[in-house]
């Protein structure tokens, strides 16, 4: 024994030495590499200099020096860390497309499963087939398999199935440890292996067997392999298990039922009596799980849930967990009913503040603070509880309390300021998560003067907290920046510092998002922000972020006072990065060339170097841009480089598909493709710090609402030859008051010469069925009603749709009108219970509100990222100008809002935002008019004593369109 000990320590020393040598070698290589990189950079810099940037020499050298310093600092930092962590080693990754990248790889700190290899582990798993079974050995191997799966290792179906069947042989062994590992194995592999039902009988035997310690886990495993078709055959056993006197068995059965019910609500519903019985168990776990199942079974029946809460809130449950669940159910109910403190649910939740268990008290306080309709009155009872918890000796309670306060800091600042004293104490909490939350909470509610102090405090331990909390800090900084624009310097520098530090993708993304948001909100921060981002992409391993930043540089860079300084950063990407980034860089370069005349020759030279790129996309883009740029035509630059594609991607795909299906001699017409719809209100939600970051919006190209409408309308034969859908009105227009017998909403769909009015109707009378429902429209001059598509039947509470087709007036200037609308239908009375209608019906009608067709219905919003380029592109040919006095408008904001609504056009260049304290403002609007004519509007507004005066200039590719738009306001 001793001998082996000694031996191993000798070994350890040798290993240590090896490691040190290794590190030294790596350091040397690193030095060499960095030198090489710098040389590369340098020569590249000279290159760039020689070719086209003479005047930039000094700045360029500075940049290089800065970069060198930065590289040296990085190196030192890594060396330091090497010394600290001799328990690991550096992996040097030298990617051809990157300058350098090295990762610290720890040895796994005594983790025996470190360095496991999938194929060899699966090979080992064949041991399971051998007889007799060696339980110890097999347990060890099975643990490895489980470890791999839990590490996210992907195992193919064939491999998994082979291993799974080998594992089934382990059922011969009675060894309890091995058996329980087998249960785990079954659960883990149930989704990746085939024919897993092979263990059904074996598990059922264990589930009903004498060994109590097998029964619970066997139930869990069984439910993981059972699908709907098999469920019936185990139903009897599940029911018995739910009410089993062994708590672990009952709990396992309850939780498994909950999982099963995701697949088949129906079968599990039949177990409600058993669940009911289990709720009265005296075991706290069983009671909690039973309540969970019971709620799950009933959760779609609001009345039943209400009953459930009121029953158990009186019954005094034993389990604090069950109480917590009940509180959650109650607050969800309140949420759904939009209830306030008058609700009996609220009384229950509040009463829980006086429960003896801390977890229940916290849950209640948390619920109250987060209620939608919470006011100061309700908070008064909950906040003192959180305040108390903030100074609890238990870190979990402190954490829970501060996290809750952090989340509601923006919504209820008063509640949080009440706890300021406690929060200040938490700033120095030894638990860094608590300290971070405390500081960011204070940042949210504090005033400008406290920012510096708190930021300093945070930076003292920034490198000790996890990425997740760093993101909390980033978000706090972002909202601070928006709150105190004057502080942007301090805050932006802080963000830039974070950007330089180590961190995962989510963290880096959060920082970039924040910088971009700040740039967009605060023009003064733009240059500094762009500079930081430029520095970041110099060494950024995340393609997504690099392309995003390049896109931003292409959009914003050309319009800064010194656009030339961004070129070097962008061109570096072309040289050093992988294809997607190179492509993005090429596009960004082209934008500089298109916007800045003085940079055009240089940009063309640079782009020409990309003509021989190895990647198709990069090459194609470069070729295209070079050719467009060489034409030196503003209009071309605007259409093809600066303002890009305006059509909806989904629509384009559909149109092209259609075109290929029905070949025609005519070339494909881009005008036939529906335009990309811009969201009405900008949906920028400034994310609340502390909110879950995981709830990211999906970044895929989704079909927009209009794409969906287009598909629905296309399916109606009568509308098949109207051409492509130009615009659907964004919000449905209510044609009835709320809570009337019939509810009718209208959506207007504009085609190039027609309009389809879609009426979505609901019948709220349970003793009537409406049939042959139509809307009769009259009264608008020049508009011809051509056709109605009735809704055949409108039973109680099942929405139905009828359409009316209208031909738009021939006169291009006549575009607005008002229709009177009447809902016409045949009523059949029916039995409210069975819905069985009478044979005979009678005709009836119902008068609806008038429906207006406005100018906005003929215009589709289109985003022009570079408005001035488009303005030049369209030119003054059909320009109309007029001055208006808008006496009813009390502010510039109001005027801007009204005009956007009137015109139905897209504000560009963020001109819908009016800088604070300004008394004059220019609004830029862009859109496409029905028929595919570009339309641009510039509205110069000034605040005067008598309201707002406005000079409106309209440009369009069609004189009639200019006329219509210019007279829209009047």
């Amino acid at each position, binding site marked *: 024994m001793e001998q082996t000990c000694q031996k191993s320590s000798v070994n350890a020393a040798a290993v240590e030495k090896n490691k040190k040598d290794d590190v030294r070698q790596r350091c040397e290589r690193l030095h060499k590499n960095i030198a090489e990189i710098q040389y590369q950079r340098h020569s590249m810099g000279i290159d760039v200099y020689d070719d086209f940037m003479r005047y930039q020499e000094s700045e360029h050298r500075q940049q290089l020096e800065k970069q060198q310093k930065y590289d040296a600092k990085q190196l030192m930092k890594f060396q330091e860390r090497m010394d600290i962590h001799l328990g690991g080693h550096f992996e040097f990754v030298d990617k051809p497309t990157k300058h350098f990248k090295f990762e610290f790889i720890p040895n796994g700190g005594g983790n025996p499963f470190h360095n496991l290899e999938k194929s060899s582990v699966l090979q080992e798993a064949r041991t399971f*087939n051998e007889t007799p079974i060696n339980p110890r050995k097999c347990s060890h191997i099975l643990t490895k398999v489980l470890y791999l799966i839990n590490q996210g290792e992907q195992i193919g179906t064939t491999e998994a199935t082979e291993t799974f069947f080998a594992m089934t*042989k382990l059922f011969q062994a009675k060894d309890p440890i091995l058996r329980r590992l087998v249960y785990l194995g079954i659960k883990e592999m149930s989704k990746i292996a085939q024919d897993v039902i092979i263990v059904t009988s*074996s598990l059922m035997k264990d589930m009903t067997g004498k060994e109590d310690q097998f029964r619970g886990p066997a139930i869990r495993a069984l439910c993981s392999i059972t699908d709907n078709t098999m469920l019936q055959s185990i139903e009897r056993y599940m029911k018995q298990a739910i009410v089993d006197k062994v708590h672990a068995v009952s709990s396992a059965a309850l939780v498994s039922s909950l999982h099963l019910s995701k697949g088949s609500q129906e079968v599990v519903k039949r177990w409600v009596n058993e669940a009911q019985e289990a709720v009265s168990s005296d075991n706290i776990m069983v009671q909690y799980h039973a309540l969970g199942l019971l709620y799950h079974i009933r959760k779609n029946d609001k009345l039943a849930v209400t009953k459930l809460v009121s029953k158990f809130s009186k019954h005094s449950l034993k389990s604090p967990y069950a109480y917590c669940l009940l509180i959650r159910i109650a607050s969800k109910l309140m949420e759904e009913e939009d209830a306030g403190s008058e609700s009996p649910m609220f009384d229950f939740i509040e009463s829980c503040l006086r429960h003896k268990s801390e977890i229940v008290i916290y849950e209640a306080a948390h619920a109250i603070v987060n209620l939608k309709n919470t006011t100061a009155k309700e908070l008064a009872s909950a906040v003192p509880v959180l305040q108390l918890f903030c100074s609890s000796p238990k870190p979990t309670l402190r954490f829970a309390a501060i996290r809750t306060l952090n989340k509601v800091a923006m919504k209820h600042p008063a509640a949080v300021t009440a706890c300021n004293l406690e929060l200040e104490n938490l700033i120095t909490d030894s638990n860094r998560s608590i300290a971070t939350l405390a500081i960011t909470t204070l940042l949210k509610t504090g005033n400008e003067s406290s920012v510096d102090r708190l930021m300093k405090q945070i930076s003292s331990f920034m490198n000790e907290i996890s990425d997740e909390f760093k993101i909390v800090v980033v978000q706090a900084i972002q909202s601070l920046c928006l709150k105190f624009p004057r502080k942007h310097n301090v805050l932006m520098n802080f963000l830039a510092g974070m950007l330089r530090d180590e961190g995962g993708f989510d963290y880096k993304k959060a920082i970039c998002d924040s910088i971009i948001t700040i740039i967009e909100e605060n023009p003064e921060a733009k240059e500094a922000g762009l500079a930081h981002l430029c520095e970041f992409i110099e060494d950024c391993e995340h393609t997504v972020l690099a392309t995003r930043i390049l896109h931003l540089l292409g959009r914003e860079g050309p319009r800064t006072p010194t656009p030339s300084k961004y070129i070097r950063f962008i061109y570096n990407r072309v040289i050093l990065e992988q294809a997607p980034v190179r492509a993005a860089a090429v596009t960004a370069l082209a934008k500089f060339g298109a916007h800045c005349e003085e940079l055009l020759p240089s940009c063309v030279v640079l782009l020409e170097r990309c003509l021989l790129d190895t990647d198709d996309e990069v090459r194609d883009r470069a070729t295209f841009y070079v050719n467009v740029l060489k034409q030196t035509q503003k209009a071309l630059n605007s259409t093809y480089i600066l303002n890009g594609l305006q059509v909806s991607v989904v629509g384009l795909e559909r149109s092209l598909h259609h075109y290929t299906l029905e070949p025609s001699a005519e070339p494909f017409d881009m005008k036939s493709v529906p335009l990309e719809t811009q969201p009405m209100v900008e949906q920028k939600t400034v994310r609340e710090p502390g909110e879950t970051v995981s709830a990211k919006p999906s970044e895929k190209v989704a079909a927009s609402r209009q794409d969906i409408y287009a598909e629905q309308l296309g399916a109606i034969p009568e509308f098949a030859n109207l051409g492509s859908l130009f615009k659907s009105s964004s919000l449905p227009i209510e044609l009835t008051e709320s809570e009337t017998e019939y509810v009718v909403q209208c959506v207007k769909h504009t085609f190039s010469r027609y309009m389809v009015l879609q009426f979505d109707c609901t019948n709220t009378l349970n003793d009537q069925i409406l049939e042959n429902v139509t809307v009769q429209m009259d009264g608008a001059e020049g508009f011809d009603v051509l056709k109605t598509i009735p809704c055949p039947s409108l039973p109680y509470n099942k929405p139905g749709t009828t359409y009316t087709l209208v031909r738009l007036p021939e006169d291009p200037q006549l575009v607005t009108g008002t229709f009177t609308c009447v809902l016409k239908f045949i009523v059949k009375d029916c039995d409210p219970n069975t819905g069985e209608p009478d044979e005979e019906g009678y005709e009836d009608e119902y008068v609806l509100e008038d429906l207006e067709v406005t100018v906005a219905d003929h215009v589709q919003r289109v985003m022009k990222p570079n408005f001035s380029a488009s303005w030049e592109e369209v030119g003054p040919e059909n320009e109309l100008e007029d001055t208006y006095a808008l006496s009813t408008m009390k502010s510039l904001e109001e005027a801007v809002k009204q005009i956007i609504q009137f015109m139905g056009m897209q504000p560009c260049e963020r001109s819908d935002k009016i800088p604070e304290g300004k008394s004059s403002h220019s609004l830029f609007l862009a859109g496409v008019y029905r028929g595919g004519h570009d339309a641009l509007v510039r509205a110069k507004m000034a605040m005067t004593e008598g309201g707002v005066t406005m000079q409106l200039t309209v440009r369009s590719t069609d004189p009639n369109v200019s006329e219509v738009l210019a007279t829209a306001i009047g």
Partner: protein
Amino acid sequence: MGLFSKLASLLGIKKKEANVLFVGLDNSGKTTIINKLKPEDAQQHDVVPTVGFTVEKFKNKSLSFTAFDMSGQGRYRNLWEHYFKECHGIVFVIDSTDKLRFAVAKEELSMLLDHNEIKRKRIPILFFANKMDLRDSVSSVKLSSMLKLEDIENKPWHICSSNGLTGEGLSEGTEWLSREMESAIKQQN
């Protein structure tokens, strides 16, 4: 590693162990027979159709059996093969009243015999002509000719009538099987 080397290595140390695979169509009585072979206190009262398989253990005078009781239902029969490799003996149970499905049983048997893992090995096969107590049951002799058992090459086989409910005929069968498996072991040595 030879098929019986593990088995052989245990000779004389402890009661020899053998893996036996129970196959046959559904409802033929496999689970019932195994249940009867188990010690009385471990026997189950109600036998339900098997889904997949279960493992059971029982002993006779000379051997310790690990029985893999496979499900006989059509959709699970293709899973038998996962357990061929390690078995030292096969028990094929036939419901001797289920005349309609004799052809199916014969088909399954020939697929089994033809399987790569079984084909070249001298694995003893025991046939139980089960449910002998029922009036319309076919005798073991008749059954053996209907299934063309005499065509089986290179494998020792034996058929006996059995009653899974009372246990009649079971010991005769298992005695034969253990003798065969033991002699296979001897041959190996």
